[in-house]
Every structure is written in C-alpha cells, then in structure tokens.
C-alpha cells in the first residue's frame, strides 16, 4: 500500500520534473521562434550572409549589417574574460583555501555585493571612474608601451568610451560569478582527498592545484563558461560605456557596440515602427545564434576533453 503510493509519487515526480526540464527547451524554442517570426520581414529583405558579414547598419535605409555588433560583442566579452578569469580564480582559491574564517566573514560580502550591485550602478561607475581612467591613464600608457607590438593597443579614441572600458566594467561584473563557483567547487572537495594530499607533504598550493585542476576542473570550466555567457548578455552597464559605435573596431580603445546594447538602446523607442522592430528582433536572433554556437563549442570541447581525461 505504502509502497504503491511511493511508486506513484516517484512517477508523478518524474513526470513533473521531466516536464519542467523539457519545458526549458520549449522556452528556448519559443523565444527563438518569436525572434525568428518577428525578424522575418528583414530576412526577406536581406540575406543571411549580408546580415552576418555586412558592416553597415542603417535599418531605416534597409541596411542591416550586424558584423560590427557581433565583433563588438565578442571583443568586449574577450577583454572582460581575460581580466576576470585569472583574478576570479585566484580570489576564489584564496577565499576557499587560505583565508581564516574570520577574514572570510569580511571578504565574502565583497563578492556578494559585487554580484548584487545592479548593472545601472556598474554603468554609472564606469562612466564616472573607468572611462576617465581609460582615457587619461590606460590608453596613453598602452599607446606608448604596447602599441608598437600590436596595433590593437593604439590609442585611437580620445573619449575613453571603448571596448577596454566596457571590458573592465564587465570583468568586475562577472568576477563574483566565477569566484563563487570556484569557491564552491573547492569547498566541496571531500576532506579525505585533502587529507590524502596533505599527508604526502603537499603544500596548500599543491593541494589546491590538484583539487582544482583534477577534481574541480569541470566546475571551474563551467564557471568560466557561465561568466562568458553573462558577459555576452550584459546590456545596460555595457551600453553606458562602450561608445555605441557601429563600426568594426581596430583597437581595444575604439568605441564599439554590442548586440544587447543595440536592442536596449532602440527597442523602447522604436518598437512601434514595424521594420525597425523587426531589425532589432533580427539582432536578438543573431545574439541567440552567437550564444548557441559559443555554448555548443564549449560543450564539444568539454565532452571531448573529459572523455579523454576520463577521471572520476
């Protein structure tokens, strides 16, 4: 009797939970479908290669080249990740492994707060602090010292509103995500593993290396992927500092434009103009495609790697 009830519970649980899991796919398809449907008018006017590779964006004139936005989105994300990943992983390690519990009490809220500060505040801070910093310090410095090696550091834009500024702001925004997951991963490592390593005379750093690189690698990679995705999707803070220049950037100090910013900048004002709305939905669709292909890439890489590693 009791058993039959439990079996039913189990079945019902499975049905509900499974339905919810599949409904997420449904949601994604629905969003993709809506975007596609609404973007159809411009897809009829412009071919897909034109959308993806053309560099001119003037929807009112029927020019829908989104290449500058795609490149801008990727550039900003890359800069952010290059800054954030090392910082965040190192900090996560320090929080989980080296800090006394009392110091943690002080430092833990730092990541909590960074995670909780709303994007608009990040944007404000970017405008008031980061943009001047890039304009007055970073860009001239890089121009003097690095531009000789790579033109991507040339100080091309005296305003400071740039990929670099957006990347810096964004890096602080994705930082807490990576820190939190890295820390969770490290703290979830079984005590026995730690004991085994310490008993071998490993230093704390060596213990960390093993736990992080072996036991925790999938978690850390996931953290980085999630940080990456967050950077892709961040809108408000980026659009306040990136310069919103729909042009192919040549240097990290160029102004640039991201897909998310494009939508946010125009949607509220232009949604009642059908063609323009359609163009923005097209941008949303392209963003979706970029995110999907990035995630598929990461997933392929991960499954390959993990298969090869084959570790517990």
């Amino acid at each position, binding site marked *: 009797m009791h058993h039959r009830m439990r079996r039913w519970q189990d079945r019902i649980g499975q049905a509900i939970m499974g339905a919810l899991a599949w409904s997420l796919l449904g949601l994604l398809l629905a969003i993709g479908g809506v975007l596609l449907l609404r973007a159809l008018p411009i897809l009829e006017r412009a071919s897909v290669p034109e959308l993806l590779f053309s560099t001119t964006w003037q929807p009112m004139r029927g020019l829908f080249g989104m290449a500058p936005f795609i490149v801008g989105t990727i550039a900003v994300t890359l800069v952010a990740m290059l800054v954030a990943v090392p910082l965040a992983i190192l900090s996560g390690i320090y929080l989980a492994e080296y800090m006394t519990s009392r110091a943690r009490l002080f430092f833990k809220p730092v990541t909590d707060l960074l995670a909780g500060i709303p994007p608009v505040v990040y944007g404000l801070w970017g405008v008031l602090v980061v943009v001047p910093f890039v304009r007055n310090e970073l860009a001239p410095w890089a121009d003097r010292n690095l531009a000789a090696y790579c033109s991507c550091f040339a100080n091309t834009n005296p305003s400071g509103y740039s990929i670099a500024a957006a990347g810096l702001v964004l890096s602080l925004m994705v930082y807490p995500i990576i820190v939190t997951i890295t820390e969770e991963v490290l703290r979830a490592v079984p*005590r026995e*593993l*730690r*004991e*085994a390593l310490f008993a*071998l*005379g490993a230093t704390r750093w060596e213990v960390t290396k093993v736990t992080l690189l072996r036991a925790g690698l999938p978690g850390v990679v996931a953290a980085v992927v999630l940080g990456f995705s967050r950077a892709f999707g961040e809108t408000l803070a980026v659009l306040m500092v990136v310069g919103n220049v729909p042009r192919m950037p040549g240097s990290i100090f160029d102004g640039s434009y991201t897909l998310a910013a494009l939508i946010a900048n125009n949607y509220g004002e232009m949604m009642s103009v059908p063609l323009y709305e359609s163009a923005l939905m097209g941008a949303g669709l392209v963003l979706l495609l970029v995110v999907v292909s990035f995630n598929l890439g990461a997933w392929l890489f991960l499954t390959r790697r993990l298969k090869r590693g*084959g*570790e517990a």
Partner: protein
Amino acid sequence: MPGIAIRKLNIWYGNTHALREINLDLPDGQITAIIGPSGCGKSTLLKSINRLLDLNEHVRITGQILIDGAAIYGKQVDVTEVRTQVGMLAQKPFPLPMSIYDNVAYGPRIHGLARGRQLAQLVTDSLKAARLWDEVGHRLKESAHKLSVGQQQRLCLARALAIQPAVLLCDESTASLDPIAARGIEELLSSLRQRYTLVMVTHDIEQARRLADYVVFMWLGEVVEHGPAAAFFQHPQHSLSQAYLAREIG
C-alpha cells in the same frame, strides 16, 4: 630515524574530549602497534602526529608532540615539512583524482625526488612493494578511483612509500585485504622496520603480536597501558588490557 614523543596531548572535537592527557614515547626504528576498541581514539592520535587535524574546523589541541626532539605544534613550525617527514595511510583509502601511475608519482614529483626514468622506476618499485604491481602494472594510466577497495588500500601504501618518509603511520592498512595480501604487506612493514619509525593502528591482535615491537593499548581516549610488545602480550598489567586480550570486552 626519529622517535616520537607525545606530551600531555588533549584533543577535543567540539565538546567531545577525544584524547585525554596522552604521554607516550614511541621508539624510533621500531614498529609500534596501537590497539583498542573502535572509537577509542586511535585514528585521532595518528592524525595528530601528522597535524592532519588542523584541517578540521572545530578541533582544539593542547599539549605537544615532538618528532626527533622537534616540537611539531607551534607557530614557527612548517607544517608541510612535518608532513613530508611523516607518511600516513588513512583508514578509508582515498586515491587522488588522477591515474594510478600519477597517484604514486605525485609525491616524488612535488618533492623533486626523482624524474623521468628514475621516477618510473620508483613508481614500479613502490607498487611492487605494496603487492599491487601484478594487478595494475598493465593499466597504470587508468583512473585510480576504478580500483577495488583493497587495491586502493595498497595503492595508498605505495603512494606513501614513494616519498620515503622517516615516519610511517598506518591506520588499519590491511583491513580490506585478504589474508595472503595482508601477509605480504606485513612482510613489507616488517622489512621496513630498520629504515622507518612505524606506527600502526590495527584491530587485529594477532597482527600486532606478529609485527609489533611496542604496543599502546587505548580505551575511551586514554592510554591504558603501553610497553614492549613481548611484555604486553605475555603479562598485561592493567585489568582492561587483560580482558581485551582475552576478548572479553569491547
């Protein structure tokens, strides 16, 4: 080979007083067997010699342990150094999340004991000494977590041997082994006696009788009796020891 001196050691887990006023001198170059009923504090004592209890958040330790005359609890002490000197086999074997080969090679690698061919040789030797070579020699690249428990136990032994510590602490290291494999390990430990200071926890009184030079008998967190093995097994002084050896209490 260092001797180990334990002075007024008290250990609390939160409010549980796990070890009470332990005073012991474990002789160097000999095998000390710690025996006593389950939960009496044997593992705790072993871990304290390796400073592994530091990892536990709510542990409080008073007293001192001296290895070769040097105090291991103290602010100045380099814990890593202590642990390098002291090898430890945990009661629940826990392989590192890497291949079988790397499990053994990891210690020598970080300590810079060997590399290349020499390292491979060291790994082979250690696995052979731990009587594991025949079973895993052909699949060294596999994950160590795929081994059976008894194999894991021997792997941990090989891992500890590979870093050539001065002191070796073994917590029930033959508990998951069949008698023949166990006998092999016993022979190994016995042969190591000259080169290591060996402390082993065992619940197998026969094993203690076979191997030990010195015996410590514990009961509810206290050392009830300790002394040379021959004397202890022939003429246990304390009534608890007598009863325990007669298998009347537990």
